[in-house]
């Protein structure tokens, strides 16, 4: 590469011992980090190591199950709900419910989401939505008709609003 022969006088000196030492330091660092990458994959059970992911949340550590399966639930619900309809999401607790609502904006792009909770705050708008997506079928919305029971939740219809 030409740049290594710049005429700016910055690299005229012979590398000498100091240069060797510097190269050794970076080399040792690269070897150590490569070993860490090896250890990263070695720690994972062989059967699971390179298994394809079902969803972006499959293996995110520390995530609650409701959020983890929620992504798939939303994609299942996407095939059931009519475009343009309003929906809300009900979960077992406000934070998981809010998390599902956030993700629904990525998945249910042809529908209009109305949250029932935003963080810990209950939101009235959720009551006006026609369809209720109940994570893991944890409850039955009063006065609603079951549209479909899916693998990771149920879709309910409260009728035109």
């Amino acid at each position, binding site marked *: *590469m*030409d740049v290594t022969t710049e005429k700016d006088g910055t690299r005229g000196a012979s590398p000498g011992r100091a240069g060797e030492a510097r190269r050794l*330091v970076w080399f040792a660092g690269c070897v150590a*980090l490569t070993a*860490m990458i090896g250890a*990263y994959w070695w720690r994972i059970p062989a059967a699971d190591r390179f298994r394809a992911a079902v969803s972006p949340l499959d293996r995110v550590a520390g995530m609650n199950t409701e959020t983890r399966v929620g*992504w798939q639930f939303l994609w299942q619900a996407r095939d059931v709900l009519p475009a343009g309809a309003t929906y809300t999401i009900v979960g077992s607790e406000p934070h998981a419910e809010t998390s599902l609502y956030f993700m629904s904006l*990525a998945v249910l792009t042809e529908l209009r989401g109305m949250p029932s909770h935003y963080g810990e705050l209950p939101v009235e708008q959720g009551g006006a939505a026609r369809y209720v997506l109940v994570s893991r079928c944890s409850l039955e919305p009063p006065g609603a008709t079951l549209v479909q029971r899916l693998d990771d939740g149920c879709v309910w219809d409260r009728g035109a609003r």
Partner: protein
Amino acid sequence: MAEGTLFFLAPLALSLFGLPAAWASPVDRFSPAGRFSAAFVTGVVAFTVWLTILSTAGIRWSAVSVVLPLGGGSLALAVVLARRVPPRSPGGGEPRTLAWILGVASFAIGSGHLALAALTSRATSMDYLYFWGVKALRFARIGGIDASLLAEPFASHMHSNYPPLVPLVYGWGIEVAGALSWQFGLATCAIWLMAAVPLLRDLLAMRLPPDEATMASSFWFLAFALAVPAAYSAGNAEPPLVLFSSVAIAALLSAAPGREGGSARWLALIALAGVLLTKNEGVIVYALIAAGALAGDVLGGLRGAQLSRRAASITIFPLAALGSWLLFEVLHGVPMHDVTREQAGELSLSHAGSVAVEFFRNLDAGSGWIAWALAVAVIAVSWRRWRLLLPAIVPALGILLFLFVYYLHYRGESLGVWVSWTMPRVSLSALGAAIVGAAFASAPEPSSGT
């Protein structure tokens, strides 16, 4: 699969909009890969600013409004620059030294690790699913930045005032591939970091022997191949922020002390614009890098008009790029504030000890502290050259100090969870600054009289 691969690779095509960078000095003497990287960095910034301007003016994005002017302008300017550059003498390319082979191997291992960790959902950022991808989908659908989405009452989790670079690049991928591939989108974290390597390597090679530059840039890449999955930052804005901030610092440090001829400072200004356009935290990163650069200038003896010119250039250009976004916010009613959990200044020193413990624990960066330890050790050994390294030392220390003070504001019961959730991610730019600084810290002293 084909759609996903196309989405994954689509960002690289943005280099077409930054072609002039590949023919500007000193990048015109870089390796082909380094020149491509410079074009990529420049193209992403040009693309972001242009699309933001179009949205501000209410002009819908299309091939005519985006590709034609950006591509045409880029090509025309590149041709003008190329005609000014004397033809390169045919050379045999770079010798295939052991360091070169190790560099290629590190690149392959790091890229494979990043891509696999992302594709197998081991590095997913929730922000990618919560709002980066959502914004991209909406922006691509309407052919513009969707102010109505950003102004919705239930959109505060989207950080409506975040600059638009990341969703615009994803939106570009949607246009190219036809859809947002959620799984392959995660793997784009590898694209940002891979794109940085040859450019960092060539900037380092302006001051370091080629083999050393290759090894130092390989170390940078492997460090981030480990740190990004550990920070669950696949799909979010951290990988581009690391790219822009590291390139900016390397470009600032690449000029030999006292010699500005053939300086890559212009590339630093473009990369700093990228820092500002990526996310709000970029303002802090930018301010620290710029402060470090200016402090270095002052301590290096610059005064008067020369100092003013450098201060003006490092301020005006990046902030003008950010201005395109601020103008959009003002004219389209996008909230300009972000909801924060803490009130600035309401901090408590009572839990400083706990913060320090959690702080240290979360500097692990997926490498068992190796990345930080080596960078700090190399800088410490070269401590006499601290003035020359200020553009790296100030952001590295400044970001950590900012985080430490930020955590002193925490009032909840789950400090450990809060720090582990945020620090591995937010400290990535500091790690990049430290490694780049360490690489330049080991640069041989300039020889005299040439």
